[in-house]
């Protein structure tokens, strides 16, 4: 249980009074608080560090904790000081706020911890001074992104009862959710690659007939056509499936990826429809260019591509600036070069637009050399052009690069967090911690009842052995859970045992036999029968692992109240499986008990039969030897195995 929540335990216990009028059984006794009323005041100040300041300093801001009467709640009369159980490092900046009027954010502080401190002391973060505000905002944003990523991870689990359509859509969006989706993902990726490859290879010349070279496409028309058909088939099927599964078809059709899909497969269908008309086939050839858009389909498969695209989008303003300044420079220099070269003969700079080509090639430092200035003025301006080109292009590029780098690293971090191992280990730890609290209660129940037994047998060593010191808090929490059990008339039980009990069909005949008796006592059959059981002077060890025994109790009581009771031993297998235990009548056959044993048992359940002469009989035990005593009470040291027997 979290330490902070421990403060609410008194509240939870008090609220349990709400169960009392509806409970049908008496409540268990509350654990007594033996230690005298502890003053929770620990004489420390802000965790031990004493700060001193004038009262008027604090009164400057009356709407905060320190400036108002709220701090009286933290007053420690003995030491005549105010005690706050908070971080002294963070408290420094809080107190400095009162002193100087400026709130600073210490860079070394974790943003969440700092926010909590501010919230505790009643200071709003908006008043952080300008000097530290940017840093604070940046850190806050990063934290929020991290939380968002965590939220998205939680959404990854599959909600139950998804329609077929939703399943397909989910499979398309997250291919790693199911094997089928993954297979489909890779198949489409493969076919995209094949398609692009065929488009490329189609144009390669292979072999020549008569005069000119023939491209492979013309030579093996049928083969390429089949390949193209296959690819388009796959793409069409994929597109139609996506269209079918999309939650909002209109939105899907408007999205860029779907447009790319359509553009990629359209030329094929148009080609099918079109005849070999000379005029139209020219346009048809142009349409084939659009087949190259299939390569954009890869962006679904490649995260890097998406990041690149996202970077470009986020750097749109820088790109725009780059383009604009380049255009300006090109126009200027083209004009200058044109007029500089106008004089020379046979010049290639025939017009200003013609000079654009030279300017671009020079500014990007390509320098093809197909257009070269011949006049001196032209050469001078040409060199100025190339120098300025380098500058103009070099300036916005680092901004774009840093943006890309930031987004890329962000994605890397997100991927790392999503890495299976980390998540699984973390979730496992959380689950264990959560289980720990409930298991602690169940463990305590077993121990508690064993303790009851031992009290009677007065076996000193074992009493001490079992007497685990439990904190008062734990015992109060367990008392609370016990009250809940009594209110509803059901007991908490271990998860594994519950499933085991569910699997056992052996309970059915018991259930059918006991409805009469249980209906007599109503819902309180279990606990109240236990109550009446107490009147019989035999303490019964009640291993909580079975739900057979309450029924068995009600079954046996009316029939044979005078009989002693057998108790079977609750033994765990080496694989840590709990066998069902049952308290069965002497009349019950042992084979009925055996039926309930788990199939992989390595240790048999032992039954101690008890004669009225109160001499213990040796128990048959496969695994462990039991000492032969009058009061055969045995406990073992290993936590796996618990043996319980009744007197």
């Amino acid at each position: 249980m979290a330490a902070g929540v421990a403060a609410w335990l008194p509240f939870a216990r008090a609220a349990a009074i709400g169960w009392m009028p509806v409970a049908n059984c008496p409540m268990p006794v509350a654990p007594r608080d033996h230690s005298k009323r502890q003053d929770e005041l620990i004489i420390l100040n802000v965790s031990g560090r004493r700060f001193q300041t004038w009262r008027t300093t604090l009164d400057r801001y009356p709407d905060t904790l320190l400036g108002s009467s709220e701090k009286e709640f933290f007053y420690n009369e003995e030491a005549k000081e105010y005690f706050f159980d908070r971080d002294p490092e963070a408290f420094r900046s809080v107190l400095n706020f009162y002193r100087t009027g400026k709130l600073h954010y210490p860079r070394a502080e974790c943003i969440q911890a700092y926010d909590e401190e501010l919230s505790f002391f009643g200071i709003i973060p908006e008043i952080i001074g300008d000097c530290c505000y940017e840093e604070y905002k940046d850190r806050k944003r990063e934290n929020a992104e991290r939380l968002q990523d965590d939220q998205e991870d939680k959404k990854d689990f599959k909600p139950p009862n998804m329609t077929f359509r939703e399943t397909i859509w989910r499979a398309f969006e997250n291919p790693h959710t199911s094997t089928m989706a993954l297979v489909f993902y890779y198949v489409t990726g493969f076919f995209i690659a094949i398609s692009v490859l065929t488009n490329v290879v189609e144009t390669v010349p292979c072999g020549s007939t008569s005069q000119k070279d023939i491209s492979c496409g013309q030579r093996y028309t049928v083969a390429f056509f089949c390949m193209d058909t296959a690819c388009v088939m796959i793409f069409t099927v994929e597109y139609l499936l996506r269209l079918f599964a999309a939650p909002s078809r209109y939105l899907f059709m408007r999205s860029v990826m779907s447009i790319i899909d359509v553009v990629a497969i359209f030329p094929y269908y148009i080609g099918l429809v079109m005849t070999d008309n000379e005029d139209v086939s020219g346009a048809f050839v142009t349409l084939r260019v659009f087949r190259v858009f299939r390569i954009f389909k890869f962006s679904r498969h490649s995260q890097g591509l998406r990041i690149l695209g996202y970077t470009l989008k986020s750097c749109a303003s820088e790109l725009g600036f780059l383009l604009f300044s380049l255009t300006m420079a090109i126009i200027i220099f083209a004009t200058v070069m044109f007029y500089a070269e106008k004089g020379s003969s046979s010049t290639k700079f025939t017009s200003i637009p013609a000079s654009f080509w030279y300017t671009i090639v020079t500014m990007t430092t390509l320098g093809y050399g197909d257009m070269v200035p011949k006049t001196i003025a032209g050469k001078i301006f040409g060199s100025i052009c190339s120098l300025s080109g380098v500058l103009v292009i070099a300036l916005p590029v680092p901004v774009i690069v840093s943006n890309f780098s930031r987004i890329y690293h962000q994605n890397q971090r997100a991927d790392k967090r999503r890495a299976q191992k980390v998540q699984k280990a973390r979730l496992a730890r959380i689950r264990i911690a959560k289980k720990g609290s409930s298991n602690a209660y169940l463990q305590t129940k077993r121990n508690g009842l064993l303790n009851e037994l031992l009290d009677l047998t007065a076996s000193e060593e074992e009493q001490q052995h079992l007497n685990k010191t439990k904190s008062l808090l734990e015992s109060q929490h367990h008392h609370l859970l016990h009250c809940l059990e009594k209110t509803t008339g059901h007991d908490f039980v271990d998860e594994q045992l519950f499933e085991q009990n569910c699997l056992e069909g052996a309970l059915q005949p018991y259930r059918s036999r006991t409805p009469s008796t249980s209906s007599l006592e109503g819902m309180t059959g279990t606990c109240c029968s236990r109550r009446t059981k107490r009147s019989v002077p035999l303490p019964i060890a009640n291993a909580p692992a079975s739900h057979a025994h309450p029924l068995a109790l009600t079954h046996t009581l009316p029939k044979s109240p005078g009989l002693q009771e057998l108790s079977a031993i609750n033994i765990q297998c080496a694989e840590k499986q709990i066998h069902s235990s049952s308290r069965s009548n002497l009349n019950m056959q042992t084979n009925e008990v055996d039926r309930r044993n788990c199939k992989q048992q390595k240790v048999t359940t032992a039954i101690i039969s008890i004669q009225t002469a109160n001499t213990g009989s040796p128990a048959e035990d496969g695994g462990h030897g039991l000492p032969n005593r009058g009061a055969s009470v045995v406990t073992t040291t290993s936590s796996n195995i618990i043996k319980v027997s009744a007197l």
Partner: protein
Amino acid sequence: MKCCLVKWIIASTAPQGPDDISESELEMATVRHQPEGLDQLQTQTKFTRKELQSLYRGFKNECPSGLVDEETFKMIYSQFFPQGDATTYAHFLFNAFDTDRSGSIRFEDFVIGLSVLLRGSVNEKLRWAFNLYDINKDGYITKEEMLAIMTSIYDMMGRYTTPSVKDDAPFEHVEKFFQKMDKNRDGVVTFDEFIETCQKDDNIMSSMQLFENVI
């Protein structure tokens, strides 16, 4: 224009940016609440000064803003019942504590409620319980209200119980409750019937004293 084209092409393939966070930053105003003074609370409740101090420290630690909203309350209460689902019962509890229906529990509500539960007379405690069961606070407990309460209590047990909680277990429990409490068989339990029946039942009377020493 080229940048517009680039934007358009890349639009939906890119993941959502961090631009969405900026809106939430505008809602940074924190809601805070300060409780009444220690002296006033001492007069209103039956706690001593020291007890109030320790209660407040715990309260403030969990809820630095001084207000417990329903979600936080449910979360805190659920931590005590790891095996089941305590949120519905926590909802009813929340309404029982939040007497002025403000949607959040202040320290005063908290402490006044606790004072009744821990230091009040048996009648006051019974009245508090009656108030808890009476969801719409009309002075009558109907079967539906009781069934809702009972279901929420059974929900706290969770799945792994022995014997297994059957689906009609809360219903049967409610039936028994009404058989006991509803003297004039009019289908509702009034406060007088409730008090009368509880006072006659030793179990209930003794269990009411159970949590005297909690603080």
